[in-house]
């Protein structure tokens, strides 16, 4: 059991972090204090050209090695300690660092050698591919340190504790952002550690997840073939990597990616009248059986421009949506909406296997 909350403002406005802290705190019993976290988008507008690295290191030694590693592979614009506040319920925390970086060693021209075998078409794709490889190398070579997030103009704030305490610790209550993901963890698969808290993030994609991915072994094997190391000891990370692989690298539309991850039953596919659509969905399911997510899940995924809310086919995890003005919210429990949008116009239960996709540009166009 876990609790998830997400929100997106399509009008260009922002939503307060303090609202989300309260919204997840009313789902207190969905977590057990072994993990909580926030992803906020659009929080570093003044550095939006730079990849914002949020790093956690267990001790000074690993922090020093992490710093050397980062500086030898990236140009560092700013390096600083993450602003935090002492909180009684967070008795220990790793050293938390924030870097605003750009690919290429310091004081040298960009060196984009050692790119993976991926086909890169433009400069941005090359930079992203470099950063992705950097993050996997970092996580596998620097002991006792991991990257929390590495996207532009966004950040993940997470750790071991109840999310309301984690939020206070990271000063989330002082932030405002147009897109939020929040998670409260009740770990059942692996021991809790700071790196195992949600959201999981790679480049601009972040995910929060309630459930258990029983197809994890298959998904991990598939991702490994394309250079994604699953090193964070939990099943959820595969979801963020799948979105990165299909949407960012393979340029599959988000809708098709959702179909790949949670396709309709074969019988449902056969009953689709429109032949073109039927063939396209059939092909997606035939081609990518290893990417299909099995097991109970409710997930929220976002890249800062669009947010996907999705349930497993059998709807084995709760997920509700709400709309107020140009804002859209998703949550494990409706009680969070009493905080976020007591004056909402619409509340609806998501259907199993039918993703909702909310886009900044298009405004609200959801089934609910």
């Amino acid at each position, binding site marked *: 059991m876990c609790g998830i909350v997400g929100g997106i403002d399509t009008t260009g406005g922002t939503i307060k972090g303090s609202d989300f802290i309260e919204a997840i705190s009313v789902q207190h019993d969905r977590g057990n204090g072994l993990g909580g976290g926030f992803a906020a988008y659009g929080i570093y507008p003044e550095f939006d050209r730079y990849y914002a690295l949020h790093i956690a290191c267990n001790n000074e030694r690993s922090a020093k090695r992490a710093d050397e590693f980062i500086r030898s592979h990236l140009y560092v614009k700013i390096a600083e300690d993450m602003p935090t506040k002492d909180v009684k319920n967070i008795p220990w925390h790793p050293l938390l660092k924030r870097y605003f970086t750009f690919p290429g060693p310091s004081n040298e021209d960009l060196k984009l050698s050692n790119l993976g075998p991926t086909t890169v078409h433009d400069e941005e794709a090359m930079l992203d591919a470099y950063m992705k490889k950097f993050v996997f190398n970092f996580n596998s070579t620097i002991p006792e340190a991991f990257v929390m997030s590495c996207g532009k103009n966004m950040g993940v704030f997470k750790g071991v504790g109840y999310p309301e305490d984690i939020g206070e610790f990271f000063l989330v209550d002082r932030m405002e952002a147009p897109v939020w993901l929040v998670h409260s963890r009740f770990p*059942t*698969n692996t021991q809790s550690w700071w790196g195992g808290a949600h959201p999981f993030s790679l480049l601009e994609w972040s995910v929060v997840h309630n*459930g*258990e991915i*029983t*197809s*994890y*072994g*298959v998904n991990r*094997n*598939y991702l*490994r*073939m*394309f250079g994604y190391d699953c090193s964070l000891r939990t099943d959820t990370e595969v979801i963020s990597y799948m979105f990165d692989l299909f949407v960012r690298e393979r340029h599959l539309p988000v809708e098709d990616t959702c179909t790949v991850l949670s396709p309709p*039953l*074969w*019988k449902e596919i056969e009953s689709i009248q429109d032949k073109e659509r039927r063939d396209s969905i059939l092909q997606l399911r*035939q*081609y*990518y*059986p*290893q990417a*299909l997510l*099995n*097991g*109970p899940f409710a997930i929220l995924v976002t890249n800062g421009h669009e947010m996907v809310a999705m349930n497993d*086919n*059998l709807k*084995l995890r709760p997920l509700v949506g709400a709309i107020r003005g140009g804002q859209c919210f998703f949550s494990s429990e409706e009680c969070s909406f009493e905080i976020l949008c007591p004056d909402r116009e619409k509340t609806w239960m998501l259907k199993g296997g039918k993703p909702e996709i909310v886009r900044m540009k298009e405004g609200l166009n959801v089934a609910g």
Partner: protein
Amino acid sequence: MSQDKLNSASSNEKELQLDMLKNWKRPVKYMPVFDYDRCTRCGLCAAACTWGEIRLIPEKVEDGKPVSIPVANRSSCGACHYCERQCPEEAITIVDTPFVSSHRYWRGDQKNLWRQVDPNKPGHVLLISTGSDSELISYFDRLMFDACQVTNPPVDPLREPIELRTYLGRRDFNGNTKPTLLETRIPILFSAMSYGSINLRVQIADAKAARTLGTFWNTGEGGLHKKLNDYSDNTIVQVASGRFGVNPRFFRNCSAVEIKIGQGAKPGIGGHLPGEKVTEEISRTRMIPQGSDALSPAPHHDIYSIEDLRQLIYAIKETTGYKKPVLVKVSAVHNIAPIVSGIARAGADIIAIDGFRGGTGAAPRRIRQSMGIPIEVAISAADRRLREEKIRHEVSLIAAGGIRNSADVLKAICLGADAVYIGTAVLVALGCGLCQRCYASKCSYGITTNRADLAGRIDIDIASQALVGLIRAWSDEIKELMGGMGINTIGSLVGNRERLRGVHLTSEELDVLGVKQAGK
């Protein structure tokens, strides 16, 4: 004492003879025992037994008619149990009479050695049929499935859909050609059994069942009989080293073509169908003269390396207009991982690996018992190598050889197979008593024989219904197992070793299988 004296000493009573030739008389292992109180002297058992084990001897005359009583010859029973099952009075029991030897180490081999030196027959290579019955451990038996408890819910197959449909073939992501995939409603295919090794009635039952179930049957290397043309949507035809029956009709009336490089029971060994078994129909289907031996050479004489295989694969693809997937079947051998990788790169769409437990119509006993490796480790090694080389998603793998039940099917899938082939299980489903003497062509059940009188013992409809029943039962069991694991589509189990744990295995064995120790 000399032979003469012994003879003369006893010559007063009855002439006693010692005979050295009897040194090699084979000890009886199995024999029918008759309950003469139940026996009605109907004589059915003697007619049923094709092995010459039961003879009828006159007992008495009743109402002017002679009555005969069945007795065991104690010469040739192989425990096929056909007489026992056919006896209307249930008056027969087959008993196992263990061979008593004081030497434990030699116990098993003494008899076999005697057979090889028997002066009544010239020294010969021991033949045997079906898959290896070696007492080596089965890895399947030492793997346990995971199940959902508390943290995620099991899926109830009676209430929720659980999907077994599988697509086999090459997923080509480069280029615009739409791949042709084999759609099977269940990840279980009927393995290759040639016309010749089994008779046409069994093949028709096989094909009918495959059509009803939405899966595939495989012709084996004996060509495609014209009566089976209609089953083309469910037929995989096989091209083996003998190239029997390979003609345009054969390529037209199939869904896929399998190149057989090897067979688990006899890796590196060819085949031999003796001329006396090449009947008119078999000769037509195989395209060889009636009565001539059908020899399958050990290698394909046009395949001496991987690049030659590539040529054959593409020759077949050209022939079939790239519309039919090409399978390559190999025996599970030590170097299976790089072999499979090479086959994948040579253009095969589906690769079938046959473990050492895989069945055969006839193989040298020494080959069957001591060549090749278990399918569990072979499929795992192949799956891992293809993943390491980043091409696992492009081809499909089929595991064969030693799949005895639905749990074996699912374990093979968790170890990396997309689907499995079953062969021996098909025969057992038709009643086969596993006496391991298919090569003799005297099968009392009428399965592995082409003698018309014996083949008539197979009722095609009943046989195909049995196969349909078997696979439906296994499907239900697989759904129960998957439901317990909280997985509702079979694709999520292909290579999913997370759902397996090992017991009683060394760390090295666990490592090769890629499975964690139970409790971890």
